[in-house]
């Protein structure tokens, strides 16, 4: 039996394998993670759909795979692996020289929601297309595995290539870090190699797949979204007192009442008043998509790097439900057991560094969202209240937003309402 890539949801139909956890001959349990797939938002694990012995692995890290494509062969009886090395056909010699034009770098899946299907049934079949079409694609630097064929059996015809180019063109006219159409090498212009060991001892570590994903996303988000960060500080003296008062009661219900739980509720209150912060920019359609749901991403700091699981329908949940869910997702993120589904569909992100330390910072908007809230560590500060100086617990905040969609005035108004929401929690809201 072959295990194929299951539907990923939300219209996503492909991704890149970043990590492979199994090899031929391994025993796997149902739901055991098979591989990590990069798509849409981050790296997600794909669990096995059944238990068995891995008889064949069809993919390797770096492969772009599509829904329905074979990932591994599984035998339930622990039968002998029936695999032999693929034989090279008509391949007289290894690639010895790198010359010629590199193919045009087509946008990665999350940039262009291009239909990418692997028409072949695994085993490295090339896409079905007439020789003339393959030649044309080669001349134009188009990777036919990314073009969906419309003719019988998924065969790619001229119209399909034309439609693909039109989509590429449409997408390339929109602001984004487009890869140059023609580069001498497939790699990005190489940064100057510096020999750091000239000045003292060094040690080197390869960039992990997750770190590569983070790096790529961050630089893309940073360079394509005009960021503005609005700073403020929120007086959370009363809120913290409220939190401490009920923390124990929550503890008895196996929930940790943290400031993040309150932040989630407060943010949703502000989002309801300012729907533009809960929106996305559809660059292809030139539309703003307002979402009538409130799914909030929570930045979780893990050993491997940043992962942002999403808590759904925060507006419909109470503080204890939110507190419990926060703990669950944070734990799953640290154990890297978050499914692809759980990383998707966020409408706004909160990054709370309060547990670690630090004050104001400028978070980077998590595309396709348009705003992100960064919370610093609350600290006692002298505050003038009623004409006297009082020690108050102030929490620094930074709200980064996409200035293409949101204006400064809107951001200021959002922050005012957010402050109010933080300060309006009553005992009744928290009491169990």
């Amino acid at each position, binding site marked *: 039996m072959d295990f194929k890539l299951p539907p990923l949801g939300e219209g996503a139909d492909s991704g890149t394998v970043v990590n492979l956890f199994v090899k031929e001959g391994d025993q796997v349990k149902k739901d055991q993670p098979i591989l990590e797939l990069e798509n849409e938002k981050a790296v997600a694990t794909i669990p096995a759909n059944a238990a068995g012995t891995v008889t064949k692995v069809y993919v390797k890290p770096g492969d772009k795979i599509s829904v329905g494509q074979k990932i591994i062969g599984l035998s339930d009886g622990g039968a002998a692996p029936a695999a032999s090395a693929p034989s090279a056909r*008509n391949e007289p010699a290894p690639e010895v020289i790198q*010359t010629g*034009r590199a193919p045009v770098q087509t946008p990665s899946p999350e940039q262009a929601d291009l239909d990418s299907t692997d028409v072949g049934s695994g085993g490295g*079949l*090339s896409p*079905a297309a007439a*020789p003339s079409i393959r030649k044309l694609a080669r001349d134009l*630097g188009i990777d036919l595995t990314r073009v969906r064929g419309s003719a019988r059996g998924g065969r790619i015809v001229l119209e399909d290539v034309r439609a693909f180019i039109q989509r590429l063109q449409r997408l390339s006219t929109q602001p984004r870090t487009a890869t140059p159409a023609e580069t001498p090498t497939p790699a990005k212009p190489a940064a100057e190699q510096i020999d750091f060991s000239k000045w003292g001892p060094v040690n080197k570590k390869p960039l992990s797949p997750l770190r590569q994903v983070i790096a790529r996303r961050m630089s893309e988000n940073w360079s394509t979204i005009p960021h503005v960060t609005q700073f403020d500080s929120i007086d959370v003296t009363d809120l913290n007192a409220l939190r401490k008062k009920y923390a124990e009661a929550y503890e008895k219900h196996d929930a940790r009442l943290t400031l993040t739980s309150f932040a989630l509720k407060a943010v949703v209150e502000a989002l309801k008043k300012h729907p533009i912060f809960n929106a996305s920019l559809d660059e292809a359609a030139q539309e703003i998509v307002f979402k009538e749901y409130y799914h909030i991403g929570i930045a979780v700091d893990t050993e491997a790097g940043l992962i942002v699981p999403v808590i759904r329908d925060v507006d419909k949940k109470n503080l204890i439900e939110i507190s419990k869910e926060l703990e669950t997702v944070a734990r799953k993120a640290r154990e890297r057991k978050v499914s692809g589904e759980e990383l998707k569909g966020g409408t706004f992100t909160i990054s709370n560094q309060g547990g670690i330390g630090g004050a104001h910072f400028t978070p980077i908007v998590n595309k396709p969202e348009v705003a992100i809230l960064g919370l610093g560590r609350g600290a006692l500060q002298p505050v003038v209240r009623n004409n006297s100086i009082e020690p108050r617990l102030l929490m620094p905040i930074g709200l980064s937003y996409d200035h293409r969609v949101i204006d400064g005035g809107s951001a200021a108004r959002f922050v005012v309402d957010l402050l109010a929401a933080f300060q309006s929690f009553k005992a009744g809201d928290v009491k169990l």
Partner: protein
Amino acid sequence: MDPIKTEIVVVGGGPGGYAAAFYAADLGKKVILVEREKRLGGVCLNRGCIPSKALLHAAHTVSSARESEARGITFAPPKIDVNKLRAWKESILNRLSGGITQLAKARGVQVVHGRGYFEDSRMLRVETEEGQQLINYDHAIVAVGSISAMPKTFDLGNPRIMTSQEALEIEDIPEKLLVIGGGYIGMELGTVYATFGSQVVLVEALDTILAGADADLARPVIAHARKMFKEIRLKTKVGKMATRGKQIQVEFDMDGKKTEELYDRVLVAVGRSPNADDLGLENTKVSFDDRGFIHVNEKQQTTDPAIYAIGDIAGGVLLAHKASKEARIAIEVIVGEDSAFTDVTIPAVVFTDPELAWCGLTEAEARARGIEVKISKFPWTASGRALSFDRPDGLTKLLIDPDSERILGVGIVGTGAGELISEGVLAVEMGATAKDLALAVHPHPTLSETIMEAAEAFYGHSTHTIVRKRVE
């Protein structure tokens, strides 16, 4: 003599070399074609494809005259004048070779006859009859081909121990001929000699004949050869040979059991070796694999930036049409087009009786690469056309991707399979589906219908054969 300056020099005038030179000239390049021999055309034209097909055609007349007896038409036993036969064959080769020379002239391709020797990465020295000629080039294409392998232990300097080259010269029709090697060369030439009256014994070290082909396709060929040949011995090695008067004494080793027999002639058809010796390539940056074939990438570039290699010398399958395709790729790359030998379907044809041809995936390859295929076959016993000429020993087979129903491979055994396979090549190259083949009307009564019917059989409704219904 001063060096001639040229944009492209092609070394070797076979089907790879002359195709490269002509294409380059057609694209406006200054080209020099260097050929060691007097006649252009290489092994294919002079000592391979063409003469063997001429002889097979001549042999076919003999066998069809014999077969006509059952149809009530009898002829006197054939008299074979080998001198006349050879002259007729030569006339064909001269005509073809002359044609190539004219085509070269018409294109302005300068042909220099002589042995080429690379002085360095930019200079070729040619030893012509008029003396040495230096050629200074921007790009060189090495298309020097391959030669019949002759293991040292067999090389007694006895002309009765032949390779395909000598066998095609037909000195005589030996009474007893031993063919060493059950590949396509041994099978084709064994067929020629057997039809002309030799008692042919074919030995093969492996346990199968025509090892590259799927077993179900090779079977009718082997069955027919067993009737034509005196004997086919599998898993048999030839130990050593010795001259015994006008005969050759041959020692066989069959599972450790040694026997000796006498033959009038021996044909050694154990493979082909690269022909790159004495070319001076060691003065360039060209590198070789451990069998002596030149390393190339998918753009036919060698490890020397100025030098390309195509055809047999570049390894892979040793077929003329592969060389011609590579010629086009090399020239396109030289003129700056983005071209590469990727996803090219190279058909294989064995001109045995019956013929055997395939393209795209074979069953063995599908298995090895883990590609799931559905197989649909149409036996020629159900073909009216095949029965009309008494040769129902054929089979048309399609390898189909079960998901997209795309044709991944086609295999045909039977009379004329070599001509029929082109439709398979087109189907594979175009990414056609079984439905495309089934829906395209094929003329009746022809053998091409077997392709359509094999496609129809995939859907469970072939007209002339009963297929199990597809269970989905």
